[in-house]
């Protein structure tokens, strides 16, 4: 469904974040991207929904050229791609309800929504999304009154409102403790399996990768150094991706 061809991103300062990266994603995959911080994972995910404009290369989704899209067309593509962030990126001073409704903005009349008017069925849909994630009792709380795990669930509910075909998750559990990490990833897995939503997710921990991923891509300095099944990642591969120094720290995660 998603095809990335010769993707390159050079930042204005001269930093090369991605170098000639190509891969394909099939419908229904749970693709995990691994790599050190600064290896280009976040840049890659943000190029897919064009929060960052790539320098060279082409990304297509179901035949539509994402890299060439502009204005309304780009927004139309974006609303089909949900995104989940490491720091949740909720509007802290707004209520949970408003935050979830924000996910629907791409579908709504821009003028009415700018005035703060949302149709009743959208509010109902938001309620259902929150109920699905088990936090329907927090509807009227302010976002910053919630715990980290709850905030990330609000982030997922916001994504659900988009009725996405693809979800990009940028280290969704890096700010959470391991128990919460599993619960968040289980929600993503549920979306992936039950709703047939394709997921591209960046992760750090090997146990999580082997538990949830259907396929893995490894990045190092913006270059693809690994592509295969999670079971194919062994100590050597891991060392290749994370570098020599990482070996000792990561080794425990591997065994």
């Amino acid at each position, binding site marked *: 469904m998603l095809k990335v061809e010769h993707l390159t991103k050079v930042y204005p300062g001269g930093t090369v974040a991605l170098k000639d990266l190509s891969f394909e994603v099939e419908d229904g995959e749970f693709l995990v991207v691994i790599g050190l911080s600064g290896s280009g994972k976040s840049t890659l995910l943000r190029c897919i929904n064009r*929060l960052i404009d790539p320098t060279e290369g082409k990304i297509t989704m179901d035949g539509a050229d994402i890299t060439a899209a502009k204005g309304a067309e780009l927004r139309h593509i974006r*609303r089909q791609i949900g995104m989940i962030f490491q720091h949740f990126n*909720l509007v802290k001073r707004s209520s949970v309800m408003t935050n979830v409704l924000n996910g629907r903005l791409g579908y709504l009349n821009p003028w009415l929504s700018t005035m703060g008017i949302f149709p009743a069925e959208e509010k109902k849909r938001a309620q259902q999304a929150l109920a699905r994630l088990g936090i329907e009792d927090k509807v009227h709380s302010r976002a910053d009154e919630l715990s980290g795990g709850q905030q990330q669930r609000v982030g997922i509910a916001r994504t659900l409102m988009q009725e996405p075909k693809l979800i990009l998750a940028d280290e969704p559990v890096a700010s959470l403790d391991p128990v919460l990490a599993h619960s968040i990833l289980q929600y993503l897995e549920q979306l992936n399996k039950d709703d047939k939503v394709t997921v591209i997710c960046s992760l750090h921990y090997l146990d999580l990768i082997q538990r949830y991923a259907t396929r893995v891509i490894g990045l190092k300095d913006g270059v693809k150094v690994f592509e295969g099944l999670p079971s194919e990642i062994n100590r050597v591969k891991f060392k290749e991706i994370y570098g020599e120094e990482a070996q000792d720290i990561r080794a425990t995660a591997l065994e």
Partner: protein
Amino acid sequence: MKRISKILQLIGKILLPIGLIAFLIFSIRVTQPDLGKLISSAPKAGDILSQLLNPQLTTRKAEKTSLSLTIPVPCGSVPNPEPATSGPRLSVDPVCGNPGDTLTLYGYDLPKNANVSLRWILPTGGLLSIRNAKTDANGGLNEKIEIRPITAAADGKAAQISIEISLPSGKLVASQTLKDVVDTMFVTIFMALIATTLGTIIAIPLSFMAASNLMRKGKVGTIVYYIVRSLLSLIRSYEALVLATIFAMIVGFGSPFAGVIALTITTAASLGKMFSESVESIDEGPIEAVTATGANRLQVIMYAVVPQITPDFLSFTIYHWDINVRISTVIGFVGGGGIGYFLSLRINTLQYNAAGTALLAIILVVWALDFLSSEVRKQMI
């Protein structure tokens, strides 16, 4: 390198106190503080202070009664009046006179210790006031009055001496000063209200233009950013009062409008700076998240930017209203209307009781608004 920086530090430590002392001496020389003068003018200060501390809040409604007595000038021009024998009455000795003569006016059974104003009622019907006097403890009056040529009888009508007795009737009413103070205070508060509102409206777009995180992306944006920034700091270096003088020259002295415009401009500049700092400190995360949902620019601003800045904006605006009320109390000094104009007029005409009333009003209003604004801001954070 370390040695050099240590030496520099040492020099700084020695130079700083020397510099401060030099500046202090310079300051004393240009300011010429004269404690002797301050001490020698203490009685004057005490006098002014005691009047300031005695504001005119109420007056007793005065009841006025008058008595009059015909004075034939010259003698024989009209018949001498029949003297009354009981009740509050006047008599004069001699009963008539020529211009230049001096008469003695006696009053009997008048209200005790009352203020009286003496005057001639001329044959033409005009009034010529003589002086104010006070009745004694028995209700008597004894005043010497000189006959002026203008009081000569004409067309068979003679001049009269009239006294008007004012008696406080005991009913307390708000004094005229208090009414004026209330009026000008209202105008002052409205000046601050309008200036703050307009200033805020102008400050909002300026603050976005002066926010580095929004503007310093393209070349044009950077240029606009620097222009707006420097403009804001240039305007902020002037007190509202300085600008008020300029606008008073354009729209006329004494009009509160000049003050409103000056306050609007300073408010826009200072709120523009404060707002822009608030915009600069917003969290980029929500902007990214809302953009990723496919929202357009307007929706991104409405749902990711506005909720983050609103509380700060409101809180700064209220804080500034408070400041503006303070400044409006003095803006009238330079012809901007409001209570400042009233106050400077009273001080310059040495009416310290009235000035004291205005000061009292200023203290109360500033205090109340200070309290209110800090309470509201506490609720917001």
